[in-house]
């Protein structure tokens, strides 16, 4: 006797309850607070905000808690929440040149106005597991350097080079509104602003691997880190009814300006071109990888040969989003009975035809052989 499987609703409810239980873990262990995640897993929170396209550290921390620490799942929660938020407009462009920097390094100049500021970085730590952290400790306060004579003035390397014409200028303000790929479908070829948005939202692992591939010869860009800076910038918004900018607060950002060799063309003399990366919070790896891929995606615009994956905008933009990727990969676990049934029937038929075609005349029947 056969009874069709039923009870999907009850099963889903119970699965959700079980998930909540597992998320909490052993109840003897104190529960994590959102503030703890926000303060002590800050780089993870920054990544979720960047790929979630929403600056809200508490929400990102909560999403991480709800997602049991799964980054892609947390990004998903943030994005789905973001969809329901009303859209008031776009802020004024932030001025990273006026950033209050916590860290600023250039690989192209030994010293420069504003100086090299090491700031909070893993770069020169030895990656030795610090067992003292098991118990928890209060770190020694870091000493601050005496502010130099040019403190507070930290011009971007790109502005310094740009004055001499050695570096391509920033593209002129077009006046047209910047595209928003969360509100308009991507139309290929996508302009640079939309590409940068896609890369900023893109999965860090994917963008990193693509950036790396350009260094290994799949679309070389001859990059130099002109500058990486991390700090806070003021955010301003012009309400229509006021007509002048009002400050909304400050946002921490990491910006990477890559300088790339360019041999020039018939019209343009040889100069350095730029790749650009910008992310929420402290995210140097992502900002650098983004800058590499941004520059490689400009190959066609600069008259360079296009062939490598990182130079192909349809390839990069269509595959860099972790939510799109994870959704489609994971949808394979949804039922496919109907399609599979169709294929099953076809394979059976093809096998029957194959058998019929290969049955040697005169061969004894199977029944007879058995």
């Amino acid at each position, binding site marked *: 006797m056969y009874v069709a499987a039923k009870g999907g609703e009850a099963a889903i409810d119970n699965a959700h309850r079980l998930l909540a239980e597992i998320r909490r873990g052993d109840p003897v262990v104190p529960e994590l607070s959102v503030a703890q995640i926000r303060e002590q897993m800050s780089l993870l929170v920054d990544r979720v905000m960047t790929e979630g396209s929403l600056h809200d550290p508490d929400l990102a921390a909560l999403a991480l808690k709800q997602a049991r620490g799964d980054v892609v799942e947390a990004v998903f929660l943030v994005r789905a929440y973001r969809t329901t938020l009303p859209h008031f407009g776009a802020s004024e462009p932030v001025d990273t040149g006026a950033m209050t920097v916590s860290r600023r390094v250039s690989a192209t100049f030994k010293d420069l106005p504003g100086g090299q500021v090491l700031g909070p970085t893993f770069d020169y730590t030895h990656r030795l597991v610090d067992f003292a952290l098991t118990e928890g400790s209060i770190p020694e306060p870091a000493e601050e350097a005496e502010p130099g004579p040019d403190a507070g003035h930290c011009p971007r390397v790109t502005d310094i080079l740009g004055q001499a014409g050695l570096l391509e200028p920033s593209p002129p303000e077009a006046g047209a509104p910047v595209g928003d790929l969360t509100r308009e479908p991507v139309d290929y070829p996508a302009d640079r602003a939309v590409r940068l948005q896609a890369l900023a939202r893109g999965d860090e692992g994917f963008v990193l691997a693509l950036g790396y591939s350009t260094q290994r010869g799949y679309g070389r860009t001859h990059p130099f880190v002109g500058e990486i800076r991390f700090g806070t910038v003021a955010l301003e918004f012009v309400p229509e009814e006021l007509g002048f900018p009002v400050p909304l607060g400050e946002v921490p950002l990491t910006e990477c300006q890559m300088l790339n060799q360019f041999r*020039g*063309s*018939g019209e343009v003399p040889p100069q350095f071109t730029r790749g650009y990366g910008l992310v929420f919070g402290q995210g140097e790896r992502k900002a650098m990888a983004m800058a590499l891929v941004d520059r490689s995606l400009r190959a066609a615009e600069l*008259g360079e040969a296009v062939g490598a994956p990182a130079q192909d905008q349809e390839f990069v933009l269509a595959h860099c989003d972790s939510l799109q990727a994870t959704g489609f990969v994971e949808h394979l676990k949804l039922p496919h009975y109907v399609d599979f049934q169709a294929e099953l029937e076809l394979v059976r038929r093809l096998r029957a035809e194959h058998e019929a075609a290969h049955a040697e005349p005169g061969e004894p029947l199977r029944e007879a052989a058995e």
Partner: protein
Amino acid sequence: MSAPLLQVQGLTKRYGPRLACDGVGFALHPGEVLAVVGESGSGKSTLLGLIAGEVAADAGSVTYRMRDGVPRDLAALGPAERRALMRTDWGFVRQDAAQGLRMAVSAGGNVGERLMGIGERHYGRIRATALDWLARVEIAADRVDDPPTRFSGGMRQRLQIARNLVTGPRLVLMDEPTSGLDVSVQARLLDTIRGLVAELGLAVIIVTHDLAVARLLSHRILVMRGGRVIETGLTDQVLDDPQAPYTQLLVASVLAA
């Protein structure tokens, strides 16, 4: 003499400071085979790309006499007309067969694609035509369902030719169709091409660095260097009595080789 099939005037293409093609012009008559020769970097492949409309010209025009007898400036054709022309009345045999064939599709499918593209919807007829064309380029009928990945270099070029000729084009562009092949394979392929060109009365523009290929196939020759045409004339005349010093060197080096 008949009206020209193709009229090329002042074709110019710049890549940065370099002139890849500098004011190239010529006329091609129905049934005529023109060889474009020169060293690599001379601009001959760029010229072919410009004529096919795959490379955008900075200056100059390409005029083609359509099947209705009316000459049309190809730059003025809409994309639909241009693509229809390319897959019916023109052919393009590439140096790299992988660019001219669908490597994952069977030989029969490769030949049949153009037919299906112009609306043929009868499997049996498509297959019969494909088999007929495979025979004409000397590919055995039992290879009709094999993909070109299982073909030798010479067979791939034969398949490209069949794929291009199935719609009865009047003009075929060929970019180094025999380079990279063994000498004996080359000879057989050239023989096939020569036979088909004569039988079908095709007009051909063949780009080659090999003067022997030019001598065997072409009526006229056009010598390019640094993006410019430096000598042109009847093939035998140019090869036996080259005027330009550069052509003399080219011919001499072939004789020396």
